[in-house]
């Protein structure tokens, strides 16, 4: 059980150590240290997942009624595994990518701290612990956004901060009320609101649920509080964008899952206006994100808009509250994590090698860097949802769940929006691949040079690509595991 505390504390402490120690002259020793810290954290995290076995760890009490509490359940395992895989991949990718950036030590310091805080979020066992680390996540990930120190980065960082703090306060609103109306703040399947309180205060509790959804939705980039995301994600260094877009937004998703399925309970929310509003918001976000991505010429911004859209796929799955759609949502958490991290790393590698940023400038990139561009193409197919990648399976479950949910209207509007958005996804992701491999007749093949990025950059991307394909080819065990979770929480 103490592995939970270790896996949270170790990266945070080593991160702080990197921040406060003197500048390391030898770049290699910094990288080796960071690498070792990352690996040890992952090992500790895995040990925590394997050995804690549902035990509860309470390090201290904030106040008498608000203990800080950690617990490992199925959802924690799912999110923690994703976090660890992506953090390792993006971490090793940074070792090459960050070579030309300044203040590397600071970057790795905050990278490790964010890692620890994300693990803590996965393991958080009650609402106040979750809130605590949710706030800390905002504060510790902000330096990653601010990294370049340019005016644009600072404005984006401030935007991120204010959106996130407002969101966190809305979530805190929920803590205040649930402390009064709930039996406990500890996450428990089926909810903690006592039936008496639920009957007496339905109106106010529904408002609280709505506010909490909007509040956690800020991190997940859900309309109407999504505007920070396309500003903040692209200004960070590419591996940091990968982590922000693939994992940190999932903290918002995790918050919503915890609030809906573990605090209010499905039975309380199903069929209420909150569910309808939530579905409407997610569908708007899905469509709007794709549209904006389609119109965006800068590659990393395009990917950020795509995150806005894709995360709301996940949220739509959860908002339908049907076994199939929730399975799809959980699966898409993993798929989107792997794919979006991979895509951002690809974008990083492209920028690192060519120094270009706009989509139309990458003509012929596939001839120069075939391995990288193949990965990009496969990942794109995954995000669009074409078999045999994981994206297909998750979107299949999402659509099927919505169709069989029996919600009037949404059972067909939902899948339609998802489908249209998938077309748009193809529209904004594939041109780069097409231009990359088929630059056209007027392309100057003479100046073509092989410039595949270094191995340490390619391997993380390959791993993520492979994962996204494996999830599509052999989804059976995963689906089985997810259905067990779904059975419990629905």
């Amino acid at each position, binding site marked *: 059980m103490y592995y939970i505390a270790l896996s949270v504390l170790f990266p945070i402490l080593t991160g702080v150590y990197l921040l406060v120690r003197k500048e390391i002259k030898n770049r290699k020793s910094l990288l080796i240290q960071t690498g070792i810290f990352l690996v040890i954290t992952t090992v500790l995290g895995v040990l925590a997942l394997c050995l804690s076995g549902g035990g509860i760890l309470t390090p201290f009490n904030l*106040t008498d009624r608000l203990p800080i509490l950690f617990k490992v359940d199925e959802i924690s395992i799912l999110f923690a595994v994703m976090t660890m895989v992506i953090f390792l991949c993006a971490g090793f990718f940074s070792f090459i990518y960050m070579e030309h950036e300044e203040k590397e030590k600071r970057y790795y310091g905050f990278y490790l701290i964010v890692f620890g805080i994300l693990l803590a979020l996965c393991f958080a066992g009650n609402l106040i612990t979750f809130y605590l680390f949710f706030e800390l996540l905002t504060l510790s990930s902000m330096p990653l956004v601010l990294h370049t120190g340019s005016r644009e980065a600072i404005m984006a960082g401030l935007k991120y901060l204010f959106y996130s703090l407002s969101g966190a*306060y809305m979530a805190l*609103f929920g803590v205040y009320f649930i402390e009064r109306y709930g039996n406990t703040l500890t996450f428990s399947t089926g909810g903690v609101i006592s039936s008496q309180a639920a009957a007496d205060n339905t109106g106010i509790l529904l408002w609280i649920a709505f506010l909490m959804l909007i509040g956690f939705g800020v991190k997940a980039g859900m309309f109407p509080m999504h505007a920070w995301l396309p500003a903040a994600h692209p200004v960070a260094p590419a591996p940091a964008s990968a982590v922000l877009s693939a994992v940190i937004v999932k903290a918002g998703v995790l918050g919503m899952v915890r609030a809906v399925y573990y605090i209010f309970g499905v039975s309380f929310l199903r069929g209420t206006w909150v569910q309808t509003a939530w579905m409407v918001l997610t569908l708007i976000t899905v469509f709007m994100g794709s549209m904006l991505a389609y119109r965006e010429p800068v590659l990393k911004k395009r990917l950020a808009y795509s995150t806005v859209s894709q995360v709301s796929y996940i949220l739509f799955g959860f908002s339908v509250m049907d076994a199939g759609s929730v399975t799809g949502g959980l699966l898409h958490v993993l798929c989107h994590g792997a794919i979006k991290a991979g895509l951002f790393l690809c974008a990083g590698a492209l920028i690192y090698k060519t120094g270009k940023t706009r989509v139309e400038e990458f003509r012929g990139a596939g001839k120069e860097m075939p391995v990288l561009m193949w990965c990009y193409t496969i990942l794109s197919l995954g995000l669009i949802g074409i078999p045999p990648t994981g994206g297909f399976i998750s979107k299949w479950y999402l659509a099927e769940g919505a169709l069989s949910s029996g919600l009037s209207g949404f059972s067909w509007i939902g899948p339609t929006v998802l489908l249209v958005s998938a077309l748009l996804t193809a529209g904004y992701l594939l041109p780069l691949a097409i231009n990359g491999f088929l630059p056209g007749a007027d392309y100057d093949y003479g100046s073509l040079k092989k410039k595949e990025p270094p191995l340490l950059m390619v391997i993380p991307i390959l791993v993520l690509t492979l994962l996204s394909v494996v999830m599509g080819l052999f989804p059976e065990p995963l689906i089985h595991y997810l259905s067990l979770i779904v059975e419990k929480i629905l």
Partner: protein
Amino acid sequence: MDFVQNFPAVSILLCLFGGIISSGLRGKTARYVNRGLLLVVTFLSLCTLCYTLESGEAFVYVMGKFPAPWGNEIRAGMLEAFMAFFFCIIMLLSLEGGKKKLVEEVEEEKVFLYYVLIDLLLASLLALVYTNDLFTAYVFVEINTIAACGLIMIRQNGRTIEAAARYMIMSLLGSGLLLLGICMLYDLTGHLLMSNIKDQAAMLYASGQYRIPLLVTIALMSVGLAIKSALFPFHAWLPDAYGYSTVSSAAILSSLVSKGYIFLLIKIIYRVIGFEVFYDSRIIDVLFAFGLMGMIFGSVSAIRENDVRRMIAFSSVAQIGYIYMGIGMGTQAGMAASVFHILSHAATKSLLFIAAIGLTDVSGGSRKFIDLTGGAYRNKWAGVAFTVGSLSMVGVPLFSGFISKLLFAQAAVQNGTKMLPALIVLGISTVLNAIYFMKTVIRIYTPVEDSAYESVTFKNMKLYGLTLICFIVLNVFLGVSSQPIVDLIERGLTVFS
């Protein structure tokens, strides 16, 4: 009577005599006397605290053996003892943190005067905390005002003289209103001892006599103390007074002096007027409304400010607003939250003032934001301390500010009509706080190429660094293990009335 019961009176007298003796000493000796006094008073308060905690009730100490209703009384419960203890610690830390600055900014032959004023200020604060006699309270309010004016003015430049004059005028207006209130109350009830007035006030209230005079009295006293503690819209004197005086003074004024008046107001509510009577007077709603407005307007003014010291000063207006909001809720929980915020704000605001001075010192003495860029790299400890203070002010968990916010919100949730405005304004104010404090934190952590200013290391500022560490520890302590203190406040408030 136990021996410990002498301690409150002894501490007040010690401080008074300390002031008198210091006026004949040289600067350095006066400082030693002052530090000695502070340590002794801290110890005495701690003993009183332990004693009251053990006995579980407050004790009344009759000054000069004249029994009530003629004599003067001191009444000490755990809340009073704890406040005295806490005030001493904050004062000690603020003085140590600003010591170097004091040497630079105050002429050498005037340093002893500074410590005379500090001793008198401490005496008056302790008296405000302990006294059970309304008129004694008034007398010490005046001593407090004069001492505070001196503290502002002792750093001689045009701005401080103007600030002190403004402070004097506003403060005297406040004391005048308070005095009027006390006179009317004396007229109505025929007493000056708090407990006697309360009995009479309850009788008057029950019989329905003198409704309007009683209401006017309550209004006069509340407004008087509100002016003195810089509740919005009476805060015009504050930014200059806190912004330009020497840093120890600013820290002490913002975290202790205004809190002394608020504590007196709480005392008046509980022990003079009586909670029910006060609650029914509706003045409480006025305090609530102005508290909410202060929370917003204080922060808005702070956002517009381009001077870091004045920004912190304006943030005090917002925080005083929080405290009045808690009082205005009119519940035990709200009051407990307010008292906790008195502590939390005292610990945080003095930390911010002291840390800000470290940052401006390594930025060529300039307080403009543009010059502070990268300040946290030049003075690491001040940077860390300022960040901790800012996070606490924003209300991030693990720091004291979060617990205040939590307590306020819990109090609000239990309150039917005032719930929504309180929670909404709390939210807005959190975001506003974040805007200016986080802006500053980002600014001081933005690296600059080859800065023109020198950096300092811990070795060059051991004492200053240690003070900052103490402050940080205090803040985190209040944020992480607040439960015993909250329990103490709640127990203290029940014993209080």
